[in-house]
């Protein structure tokens, strides 16, 4: 092998590595914020109504939903694909506002065949470990804020599918309104809970780190209930120190930038050398 051939092979290897690094780094840089739902600190005392003044200043995250894996009949048949999530906290309470499209306001379960619209927010009971997404697990439970158009709110504990149990003394409140009609109709729902509410199996909200959170929506008129529901992946509320959280994004973009510069440099150098050789 000539020294030229070795040099060419080396150049190609460096190029390939740099291209790989930059292609991996760019998506990584945006993946983390996609699952972050910012929590706005606010002075306003009461955001508990979906139409309360102040919500317009709170940024919304679009959270994608998909049918939950479940053994119940028609588990694949869900209709809601996105829920818009806003979160705000005062020094007293955390408010979580969900808004999603639903053409029909299903608030009755007064007939054998009718089911009510519903939604839920799920947290790990113990913020230090992320439970299985589907209702947690026996050793890693979830604390669920549930609301149904027919029966109102419930605070639930679950340690795996089928284990849902209601808290005797719920700490949450929920208010919902359905507005618009047809394709423009939406549900808007606000859950709130005192930050300092304590209790066995109740998620601590005064945490210093990120708090995992997931969402679920049921469309009653589609017969959705139990495991037939549209669910999100785990997201998180950044309750950590400072508004930015860990500087992953900056770090990764820096790596990507260096990679791009290096690729351009090496390519230029290669072309230059090739011409010089001629």
């Amino acid at each position: 092998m000539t020294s030229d051939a070795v040099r060419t092979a080396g150049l190609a290897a460096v190029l390939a590595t740099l291209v790989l690094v930059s292609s991996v780094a760019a998506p990584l840089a945006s993946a983390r914020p996609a699952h972050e739902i910012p929590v706005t600190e606010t002075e306003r005392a009461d955001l508990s109504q979906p139409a309360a003044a102040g919500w317009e200043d709170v940024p919304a995250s679009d959270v994608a939903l998909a049918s939950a894996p479940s053994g119940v009949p028609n588990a694949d048949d869900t209709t809601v694909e996105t829920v818009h999530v806003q979160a705000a906290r005062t020094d007293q309470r955390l408010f979580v506002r969900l808004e999603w499209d639903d053409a029909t306001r299903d608030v009755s379960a007064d007939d054998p065949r009718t089911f009510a619209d519903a939604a839920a927010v799920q947290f790990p009971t113990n913020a230090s470990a992320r439970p299985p997404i589907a209702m947690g697990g026996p050793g890693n439970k979830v604390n669920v804020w549930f609301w149904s158009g027919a029966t109102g709110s419930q605070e639930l504990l679950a340690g795996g599918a089928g284990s849902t149990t209601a808290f005797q003394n719920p700490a949450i409140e929920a208010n919902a309104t359905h507005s618009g009609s047809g394709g423009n109709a939406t549900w808007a729902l606000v859950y709130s809970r005192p930050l300092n509410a304590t209790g066995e199996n109740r998620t601590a909200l005064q945490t210093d780190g990120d708090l995992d959170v997931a969402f679920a929506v049921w469309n009653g008129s589609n017969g959705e209930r139990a495991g037939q529901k549209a669910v999100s992946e785990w997201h998180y509320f950044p309750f950590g120190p400072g508004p930015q959280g860990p500087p992953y994004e900056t770090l990764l973009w820096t790596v990507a930038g260096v990679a791009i510069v290096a690729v351009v440099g090496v390519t230029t150098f290669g072309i230059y050398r090739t011409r010089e050789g001629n």
Partner: protein
Amino acid sequence: MSTDQQDDQGSEDSLVDVAEGIDHQVAMVMDLNKCIGCQTCTIACKSLWTEDGGSEYMYWNNVETKPGEGYPRGWEDSGGGWQSGEHSERQTGEIPDQEDYGRAWEFNHNEIMYEGSDEPLRPREGAEWGPNWDEDRGAGEYPNSYYFYLPRICNHCTHPSCVEACPRSALYKREEDGIVLVDQERCRGYRYCVEGCPYKKVYYNTVSKKSEKCIFCYPRLEGEGPDGETYAPACAEECPPQLRMVGFLDDEDGPIYKLVEEYEVALPLHPEFQTQPNVYYIPPFAPGQHTEDGETVDIDRIPRQYLRELFGDGVDEALDTIERERQRTRQGEDSELMDLLQDKNPAKQYRLGVFDDE
């Protein structure tokens, strides 16, 4: 394999297939030849268990005319149960429409009793269907029309598809006697049990938002009444012609075991649903068809194929056995089977304490 052989031998010895983990299995035999369609069982049940708000439309015990739509209307075609005797895949089912159950009608009692109206007593409006809407209609043409009554309760199945359908395990089969119950604390009103039961014998309470069903009057079995005595379910005890026997399927000295397992004349309803019911029926006899001149001919009035559809292929042999034993008694011979079917002694008709000492 010696172990397998022992297992085979064991299952032959026990003879009765009770569900896994169940000590004994309650069972009921209803003799359809004795049912007069009086609905006393229906009312006995209703006044005990389903008079509260949200349960007005429920009849845990109902008596329907066959052939007929039944209660709820069209229940036999509403799905549920198992795809096969393997009990691994369930059949999809539907929740009946409220109109198919029928609603509790409002009557014009007030106008007639207090306001001097001379209207006939009748439902105010919306009376277009209800339980027994097609009562006594049956099928066939004069002079060969036919019908019979079919009393129905929960079958407390050995392989209950309602139990399997519940994602929360809110329904369960009691270990001591195999009664199928809905834990009202666990139920969240999803109604998979309602659609999963092929007999449509689990009902959704529209007020409590939970499902309910026949409890085989277990508090009566347990002597929870004021006198502390054990009683059979109210539908059985209150029956004027006393057409029901109550006991345990695995009580080998009892009449139910003999009728179901030995003589094989008591048959489950729609065995093809594969849930293995523990309510059994003595199939109905009817006089032969008549000619236009009024002469009886040797043709089944109730088409045999219809009875096979209801009770399975075992109905041919069951009817043959009963006919053979009837003939014996006509000739003055003894027949244990005929004695069993005619026994009026409650101590034998209701054998509920046989396993109390275990």
